[in-house]
């Protein structure tokens, strides 16, 4: 004869079966009347761990360079007009900067509405630069060289590292640190490969003490970056804030 525990489980199972059955009937009705949209997009993979971010960013950058070179050639040979080139390049920029931001954040699924919002002003800035670039090509179409168009287009490839750094920093570190890599505060501008390196010093209650040290990356360094090398800031961060291992270096 079943004991009291078994009987109780049977009673619960019966009740859960009934609840599930009712919900599924309601769902079937909902699907048949209201319907559901067919998915039109492919789910994106990730998350990305800290060690893979740089490799992934470099891969994405070389993809962007291939496309920007190709577009420059098409423009130069007259296969596409300046307007078409500008629109296609703008679309590539949007994709590339979004991917870079997602890499910095650790994956597409990690990006929040607020993160996309923070990327907005940076994109607007790039589109403005692109407008200037297109006008320059138009004004100098007789003399401009393919080499120049390619080289200038590639500069946009360097700038995307800032969107990755911005996501790594989050709103908290962006506000607390005196500057960010590739933010334009150095002579090397968006070619800066320096990085803030973080060390957690200690925890006191709900506060975490984090040391951020400016470290030079692998590049030719400008005077400001050299001067900043080793610059240290210690901040008290709430435990709820995610602390990245570092910021920048792209």
């Amino acid at each position, binding site marked *: 004869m079943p004991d*009291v*525990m078994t*009987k*109780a*489980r049977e*009673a*619960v*199972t*019966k*009740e*859960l079966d009934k*609840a*599930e059955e*009712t*919900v*599924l009937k*309601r*769902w*079937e009705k*909902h*699907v048949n009347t*209201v319907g*559901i*949209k*067919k*998915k039109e997009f492919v789910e994106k993979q990730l998350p990305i761990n800290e060690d893979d971010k740089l490799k992934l960013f470099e891969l994405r950058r070389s993809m962007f360079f291939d496309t920007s070179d190709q577009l420059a050639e098409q423009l130069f040979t007259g296969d596409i007009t300046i307007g078409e080139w500008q629109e296609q390049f703008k679309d590539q920029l949007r994709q590339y900067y979004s991917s870079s931001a997602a890499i910095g954040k650790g994956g597409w699924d*990690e990006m*929040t*509405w*607020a993160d996309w919002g923070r990327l907005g002003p940076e994109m607007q800035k790039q589109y403005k630069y692109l407008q200037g670039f297109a006008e320059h090509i138009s004004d100098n179409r007789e003399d401009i060289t393919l080499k120049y168009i390619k080289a200038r287009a590639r500069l946009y490839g360097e700038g995307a590292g800032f969107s990755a750094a911005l996501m790594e920093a989050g709103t908290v570190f962006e506000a607390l640190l005196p500057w960010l890599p590739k933010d334009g505060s150095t002579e090397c501008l968006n070619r800066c490969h320096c990085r803030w390196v973080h060390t957690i010093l200690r925890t006191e209650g709900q506060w975490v003490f984090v040391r951020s040290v400016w470290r030079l990356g692998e590049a030719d360094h400008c005077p400001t970056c050299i001067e900043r090398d080793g610059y240290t800031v210690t901040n008290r961060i*709430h*435990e*709820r804030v995610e602390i990245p291992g570092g910021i920048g270096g792209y």
Partner: protein
Amino acid sequence: MTVKLIFRKGGPGSGHHGHGGLKGVHGGSSDSGKGTSKAPAKPKGRVWTGTQQEKAKKRLSKLATGELGERLAMKAAEEKIGAPFATFNTDINNSPIDIAGDHHAIEVKTGLASNGKSAQHWRATIGEPGKAEKELLKQMDSKQKRAHNTWKRQEILKRKNDAVKEMSRIAGEEIKGATIGLILSPDGSRADVYLIPGFHQRMAWNKYATDKYYVGTYDA
């Protein structure tokens, strides 16, 4: 014959937006010079700031809190996902999901910003026991009751995931289980809404009521 002329304000391209302008700054667009619409309310910020808030004089009942939470969760889900949602738990004890729509099956959990530190979380509940279960519980000692409730809690969680699989089969598309957690202001006038993938036994606010899951703050 009488001819009636009807003036409509605010039609497309009319430039009438019902405001009276700002004195000394710029002109308005209404014909009277007086605004016809109220000034936009200042943004109020989030309800939950990480610390317990003072309890309201008139407290919301558990039932009212749950109902309000579910209504706001539907509003937020419809707005963010852009598809109609429906309630699925009416008159069901231990319903595997609360609301669903499009590719989402959602459990709704509501808490008050006035909750003490030990209650600052969303927790899976095991619902009111049925009549038969109640009788059997009376025959159990406290150890047995604890073991039974632990099993029940796990079984409910398992059933939620099973139900989502079955919902996917019915829809012919992958349906994802998620939890919408709400933190209501003590008077129930506003709520922060968080969307968290999957179903969970317990979600502490210091870990889940964060930017990562934040959807928005809604007026009740």
